[in-house]
């Protein structure tokens, strides 16, 4: 993050910071939060589920999981639904396990620092002040708030979790934090001063205390007063820093609220890394953005009354309502006023536009290549299909032609009475209509000539037999068609007829193949079927 910031041109960084500030002041929707998301199904979105899980974990309804994985997930598993139901039940909502706008609103009221809360106006239905003080969900939220504001002795080990006990009588740390908060409020004159803490009150929540806890801006205003800041800065240094951290985080600076400070490597000097605390870095960033509000350099990295005065100025800034567009206009005007930054900005835009144009060209070329490939493939594919259909059609036509030829030859055989063979008509076979045969053989014929003549005649009888069988099949096929037409169940008959049709067609094909084989064996010409019989 720090390295990325260093690489940015200063004015672009300033523009980004302005946008962040606008987000912090809720002039722009925060893309990291579900609020203001353009997603119409916001309560089913992943961002919303993640935010909801995070809040449930913060309130101790859901465990962090190994490696804090529960914060990153957006699954709706059983434990998650159970946690929602528990929260709804404790908050006085209908425990249906579905976290809709009402559940989200209640949760936001309890957890969020962004808006001051009036506890009496909370969306916890049918609860009066006493009920709010006894409400378990409120207890959890108070614990979380006290923790975030640094009223527990340490950050480590005190963070809320699923086993945390929220009973003041049993949880001494919680009790002590609450008492310390009360004393802090008295110091800041947010609560009336009392001679000493009542023993009974130490074990119970007071409504005024809760209300004070949720008046977050009041702390900013109080700490902006130098005399109060001076009184508290030694004893409540940790809490003041925590409050400053929360405010910086709300304004979009990387200040890590609700946790101990961490260090960021900023540069190397003489072989050693110079580190800076995240808090100091956030304050420095803040003052860099509002350089006109601070005079002393020393103030620029520490939590001071001046910082809180600046916060208070932001909270009550009359320019808050200034149009965001005019803010951006101002920023741009400032950037364009300086020739150097203007040139840098132009270069940046040039680089971006060139990148976009290159990308568009590449995508276009890729699309054209894809379209060409798809067309080539489609043409090949269609050509193959056409070839396949053509081949099948030729074969089919061939079978039909042969079928007609065989049937015609068969009936010619049946019609013809006399068959002559061998040159000179020296072997004559006469056939009657009832298949009685009379044969006249010339004595001069050789055995081979007789056998050849018989073979020829045998082929004619085979053709006739095949023709009768083919005709039978055709009659069956037509019969099926007629049955289908007149059937009361046409679809069923059609199916049965189709099966039989296919079977008969297959048998006709077999007849043709058998005859073709015989013809091949006899080495006879295909034309012999007709002229020799005729």
């Amino acid at each position, binding site marked *: 993050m720090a390295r990325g910031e260093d690489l940015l041109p200063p004015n672009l960084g300033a523009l980004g910071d302005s946008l962040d500030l606008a987000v912090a002041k809720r002039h722009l929707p925060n893309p990291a939060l579900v609020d203001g998301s353009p997603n119409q199904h916001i309560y089913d979105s992943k961002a919303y589920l993640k935010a909801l899980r995070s809040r449930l974990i913060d309130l101790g309804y859901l465990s962090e999981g190994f490696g804090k994985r529960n914060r990153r997930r957006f699954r709706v598993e059983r434990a998650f639904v159970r946690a929602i139901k528990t929260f709804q039940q404790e908050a006085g909502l209908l425990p249906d396990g579905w976290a809709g706008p009402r559940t989200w609103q209640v949760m936001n009221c309890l957890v969020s620092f962004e808006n001051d809360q009036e506890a009496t106006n909370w969306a916890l239905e049918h609860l009066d002040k006493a009920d709010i003080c006894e409400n378990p969900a409120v207890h959890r939220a108070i614990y979380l708030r006290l923790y975030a504001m640094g009223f527990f002795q340490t950050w480590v080990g005190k963070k809320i979790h699923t086993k945390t006990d929220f009973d003041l009588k049993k949880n001494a740390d919680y009790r002590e934090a609450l008492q310390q908060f009360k004393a802090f409020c008295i110091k800041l004159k947010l609560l009336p001063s009392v001679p000493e803490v009542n023993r009974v009150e130490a074990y119970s929540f007071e409504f005024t205390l809760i209300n004070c806890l949720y008046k977050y801006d009041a702390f900013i205003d109080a700490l902006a007063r130098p005399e109060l800041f001076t009184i508290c800065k030694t004893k409540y240094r940790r809490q003041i820093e925590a409050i400053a951290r929360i405010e910086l985080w709300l304004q979009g600076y990387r200040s890590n609220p609700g946790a101990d400070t961490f260090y960021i490597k900023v540069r190397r000097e003489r072989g050693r890394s110079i580190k800076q605390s995240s808090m100091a870095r956030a304050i420095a960033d803040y003052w860099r953005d509002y350089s006109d509000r601070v005079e002393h350099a020393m103030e620029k990295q520490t939590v001071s009354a001046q910082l809180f005065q600046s916060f208070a100025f932001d909270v009550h800034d009359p320019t808050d309502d200034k149009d965001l567009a005019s803010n951006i206009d101002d920023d741009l005007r400032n950037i364009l006023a300086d020739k150097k930054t203007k040139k840098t900005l132009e270069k940046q835009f040039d680089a971006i536009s060139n990148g976009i144009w290159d990308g568009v060209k590449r995508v276009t070329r890729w699309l054209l290549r894809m379209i060409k490939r798809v067309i080539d493939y489609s043409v090949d594919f269609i050509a193959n299909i056409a070839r396949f259909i053509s081949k099948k059609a030729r074969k089919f036509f061939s079978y039909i032609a042969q079928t007609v030829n065989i049937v015609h030859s068969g*009936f010619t055989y*049946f*019609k013809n*009475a*006399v068959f*002559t063979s061998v040159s*000179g*008509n*020296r072997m*004559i*076979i*006469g*056939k*009657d*209509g*009832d*298949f*009685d*045969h*009379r*044969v*006249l*053989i*010339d*004595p*001069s014929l050789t*055995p081979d000539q*007789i*056998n050849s003549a*018989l073979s020829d*005649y*045998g082929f004619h*009888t085979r053709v*006739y*037999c095949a023709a*009768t*069988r083919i*005709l*039978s099949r*055709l*009659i*069956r*096929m*037509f*019969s099926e068609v*007629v*049955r289908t037409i007149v059937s009361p169940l046409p679809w069923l008959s059609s199916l049965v007829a189709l099966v039989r049709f296919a079977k008969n067609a297959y048998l006709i094909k077999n007849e043709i193949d058998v005859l073709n084989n015989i013809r091949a064996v006899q080495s006879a010409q295909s034309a012999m079927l007709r002229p020799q019989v005729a």
Partner: protein
Amino acid sequence: MSVFRKVFEDMGNAISDLSTLEVTMFEGSVDINAESKLDNIAEVLEAAKGNADVKCKLVASTKSFIDGDIVAFYDHEIDEVQRNAHAELVDMATESRQATIDMIKDILDNPGGI
């Protein structure tokens, strides 16, 4: 008249005589003009008789009945080739007749096809 109708009429006429099958084989020489059209074997035999030089002789005859009875005649001078040719012709005729009977049976079973 259409070809099929004539064919079926011929078939109808043939049915009446399908109960018997007779195959007769003659030996003799006959001279038939290639262009002449012969309608039945009787004309051939008649033409053979007209030739004084021709000797036409019955060498084999087989008559089979539908009930399986067979009456066969073979001349004692018939040679092996003629005997085999006669037997083969009987088989061919039997096969053709059976095919015809089967087809008629199919037509009767599936009248809708006609």
